[in-house]
């Protein structure tokens, strides 16, 4: 349970005109900003702001899986750790994993396992760390969306990015992307994550009260929003790699190219070859 502020029960989460407390319409996302490559030490990273949520994600690996008994001789493990900073919520959260964060870490790990080419990196682990710095509901979606960008920034081969969003029900109306008050006082919340290119659902949770028709409506909102978020993720990566290219350009200009003729070419790098399959 995250913090709960006291708001009178009569409070209307959505008015007759379909406007929510924060001024959004039912099908409107909170503003989202994503930046890739924000940390120096990590192999890949991303920072994301989603409404009042602030989330950092870092990726390390593929690296040797520890503890070793967890190693899979056939594939890489994708191990996610979702963690909330003690100051990220109104009432201080005790540091360290609790049952909620263990479950969220598990379902996010499973979601990424569906897209990472795990069979290319046997015995390794791709470690995904999500730190929630400021929370305002929807942190698992924000964390997953950020971590997806961090995985791409780390150059981890994936079938596609994963994009996450939630929809729920407030004041009897199905609505996109609930904030904290709406989550606490609404009737249902349904976070999901999809592979945008194929529409596969890789994460799905729901709590509250929805009819089957309302569920369809909620998924339609979330999938529509995921398309917008997917573009923001791709844009963050484009900006990241444009800046990498610029830096390389500057480096090249500072150092004049060597005049000597190229000598014997080295043999083709093994990275270019398809991964070898061990038939034994």
């Amino acid at each position, binding site marked *: *349970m995250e913090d709960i502020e006291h708001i009178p029960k009569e409070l209307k989460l959505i008015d007759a005109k379909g406007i929510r407390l924060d001024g959004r319409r039912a099908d409107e996302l909170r503003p989202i900003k994503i930046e890739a490559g924000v940390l120096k030490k990590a192999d890949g990273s991303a920072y994301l702001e989603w409404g009042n949520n602030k989330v950092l994600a870092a990726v390390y690996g593929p690296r040797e899986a520890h503890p070793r008994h967890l190693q899979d001789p056939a594939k890489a493990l994708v191990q996610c750790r979702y963690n909330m900073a003690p100051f990220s919520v109104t009432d201080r959260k005790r540091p360290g994993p609790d049952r909620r964060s*263990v479950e969220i870490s598990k379902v996010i790990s*499973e979601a990424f396992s569906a897209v990472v080419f795990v069979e290319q990196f046997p015995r390794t682990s791709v470690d995904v760390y999500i730190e929630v710095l400021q929370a305002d509901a929807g942190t698992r979606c924000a964390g997953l969306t950020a971590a997806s960008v961090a995985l791409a920034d780390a150059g981890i081969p994936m079938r596609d990015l994963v994009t996450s969003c939630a929809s729920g029900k407030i004041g009897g109306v199905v609505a996109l992307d609930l904030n904290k008050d709406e989550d606490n006082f609404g009737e249902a919340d*349904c976070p999901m994550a999809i592979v945008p290119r194929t*529409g*596969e659902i*890789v994460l799905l*949770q*729901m709590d509250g009260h929805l009819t089957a028709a309302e569920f369809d409506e909620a*998924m339609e909102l979330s999938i529509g929003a995921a398309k917008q978020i997917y573009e923001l993720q791709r844009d963050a990566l484009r900006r990241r790699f444009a800046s990498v290219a610029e830096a390389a350009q500057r480096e090249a200009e500072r150092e004049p190219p060597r005049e000597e003729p190229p000598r014997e070419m080295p043999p083709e790098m093994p990275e270019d070859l398809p991964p070898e399959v061990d038939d034994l």
Partner: protein
Amino acid sequence: MTAEVISELLREHINRLAATGKRTDGRAFDEPRPLTVQKNYIKNAEGSARVQLGDTDVLVGVKIDVGEPYPDTPNQGVLSTSAELVPLASPTFEAGPPSPTAIELARVVDRGIRESKTVNTEKLCITPKEKVWIMFIDIHALDYDGNLFDAASYGALAALSCAKVPASKIGKEDYPLPLEHWPISVTAAKIGGNVLVDPNLDEERIAAARITVTTDENGDIRAMQKGLRGSFSLDEVRAAIRTSQRVGKGLRGIIQRA
């Protein structure tokens, strides 16, 4: 939890059967295993049930004690759910602190009970802000042959349905736990392109993805959880919801009558 080696022969066998609409134990894709429920199995628990879903065997106890309410719900009783995957139940279960699997199990069962407002927690208030009844649901796996999610949630519901609030402890008369809804979870596993209800252990071990849908007596959805590394299409999720509504009816009847 240690991983268990899965025989390629078995994997192929199950896949080949599924491709022709069959299962290893002869069931239809939307047919759960036989469910038996024994209520009041443990005398020292305020409510309890032993549930067998095929060869999966789970004991659920409900203990009810006086405690403090949460500050944001000062006049409501409290629900707390835990699960123990004890090594007695499976060669893959290990002693020690709860694994992520056990935590997910407890939280999914808890979500189904909580979100459908199964128990009227306002009737569990003793003194607002100070004293309320706290329900502890403890799930104890005895024999693991797949689909603990459903076996445990049927056990939890059955145990709650026969539980008594021990009000004699505070000088009042004991009364039955105020149960108002009957949420039923139905879990299905994706094998090849098929979605199979109530997977047994062999099916569960080769499944790409798992989905649990909890519906109430009106057929409304109260909780969902997708698990494992694979994925579902939206149509598969919709089909799982319809199956849960349909299959849930029969199972609810068994638990109510037990």
